[in-house]
Structures are given as C-alpha cells and as structure tokens.
C-alpha cells in the first residue's frame, strides 16, 4: 500500500498524477484529494489519508479484474 505517481503530458506540459493504491485519499497541506494532478515543476508530495468510500474506488492498474482472479486461480490448479 503506497502513494503512486505517474507523469504524463498534456498539451506540451508535464503533469504528475498522484493516488493511493490502497483506495485512500492523498493529503497535502491538510487538504484531501481522491486523486491529485499537479504540474510537474512543483514537485508536490502527498501522504495517505482516509479510506475512500467503496463507490469511489476507480478501476485501474492496481484493481484486480475478473481475468486476474481467474489467472491466479489457474496457477493454483483450480479449473475455472
């Protein structure tokens, strides 16, 4: 469980997306965000905050899909 970041470009400008892979808010200067997008030049850092409500969990690279579960079960020898 950790703060995750990824850098991307938007119209020639570098941004950093920051989120928690534990479905928590990210916090900076006492303000909570469910996901933070910042211009890269500011180098902003965050800490993990409270757990987000279940309905606000976004599917993403860290969210296991049905296929992930099937693959994991197959590795254990389970026929799915």
């Amino acid at each position, binding site marked *: 469980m950790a703060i995750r970041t990824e850098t991307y470009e938007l119209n020639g400008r570098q941004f950093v997306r920051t989120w928690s892979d534990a479905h928590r*808010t990210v916090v*900076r200067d006492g*303000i*909570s*965000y469910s996901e933070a*997008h*910042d*211009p890269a030049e500011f180098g*902003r850092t965050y800490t993990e905050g409270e757990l987000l409500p279940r309905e606000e969990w976004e599917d993403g690279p860290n969210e296991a899909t049905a296929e992930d579960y099937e693959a994991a079960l197959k590795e254990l020898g389970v026929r799915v």
Partner: protein
Amino acid sequence: MNNAIDTLLAVSGLLGGTSGGGGGGGKNQLIELMNGNAVDVDDDSLTGSITLSSAHLRSIRAKNATGVGYNLCRLNPGLVAFFGPNAWLETECFKGCCTLVTCVAKGPYAGNSSVRPLQQYQVNKMALTSVDFTAADYSAQPGTAKGIGNQCFEGDYKFNLLILRSATLWPLANINAFDGTPFASVGSGGTIYIPKALYDHLGDGTALDYKAATNWSTLDGYGTVTWAQIDGSIYETQYADGTPIA
C-alpha cells in the same frame, strides 16, 4: 415572485437532520405544497436546512436557508432555478435534476466522501448552465474533507459558467468533478469567475494560483477554461441568476 399557493403546510423538525449533519444543526423544514398550483417559492422565513416537495415547483428562492436537504431535486422534478446564497448543498441534493438551469448557493457541503450535489444521472440531457458559489471563505464549509468534491458537476453538459467568490482558493478533490461538462478535456469550454485577488495570482505559481493548483491546473492544461475576475464584471453586483447582490 408571487406564490400562487392555495395551502402551505410547514412542519418543522420532522426530518430530524439530513444526511451529513444539516450544515450547522438548523431546523429541517418539510414544506408540502398542496393542491398543485404553486410554481414558485420565495420565502425569507425558510431557514435551516430545507426540503421542499412539489411536482409543480419551478423555482425556489430562500435567501435565509442555510442548507439544501438530501435529494431535494428528486422531490421537485421540474425545478428550474435555485437561489439560496446562504445555503450549503447537501448530499446529492440536485443530483439528477435535469431541469435545473441556475444554482446560487454557498457551496457544496463537505464530507468524508464526495456529496455530488449537482451530478446528473443522464449525461447530455441536463439543463444546468451556471453555478454561483457565494461563500466568501470556502473553509467555512461544514463537514470534513473541505473543497469541491468528486463528481460535483459530472454530467452537466451545458454547464459553462462557474462563479467562485471565495477569497481563498477552493480545493478540488478530483478533476472528475467536471467530467461530462464543457470544462472537460473534450469540452467546448467555459468560464470561471474568481475574485480579483486570486485572478491577479493566475500564472505566478503561488498557493493562490488556480492555474497551478492541484486538479484545477488540469483544466488549464485542457485549455477549456477561461478565467475571469468578478471585480468589474456584471457578477460583482449580481449573482449568476441575475439577482442583485444586496
């Protein structure tokens, strides 16, 4: 506006507090409009957190109300305009209100989760065009997790005018607050009015710069937002719905 109301029944305290705490503990008032002839409510005696219910309600003007109750709009399917400059918008109060055109309120209620006061169910079928958050200081917002929450305006596909009167920069919890609006990445664009004191900081990279602020900066990156200052504009003397500012 005149109330063509045959019978008005006001019942105080029946609801006992809305979801989220009712914005300061004010009385909840359930007003049931009888006989179906009323289309407008304009009542300075509406205080606390209000919940109104009528299939025929077209506009609500409640300048002394301090909150708008949960799911208000589901009880008022024809609502076009809401004027409550002292009211905090509680959980999902106008969610799904596909006829609402203007909303003047103090701001959204804060909470541990987003409260989605203006999120819509049906994308591309909404009427909302302008929102005026009148709070002079966003930090007075009741509840925790201050700021404009997730999906606040999601789906309001005509929403292109936002007025933020707070002298301090409104935090934006997630850029998805503007999904499906003209401010979104593929949107046609909209205008956000802010106080001169914040407008003067645009682009300077300080903590008062909306163009550098978390998530707001993404709108700037999309190129869909035009920033304007309230001072010197028509919104210095009137709210987004045209009501003069006293």
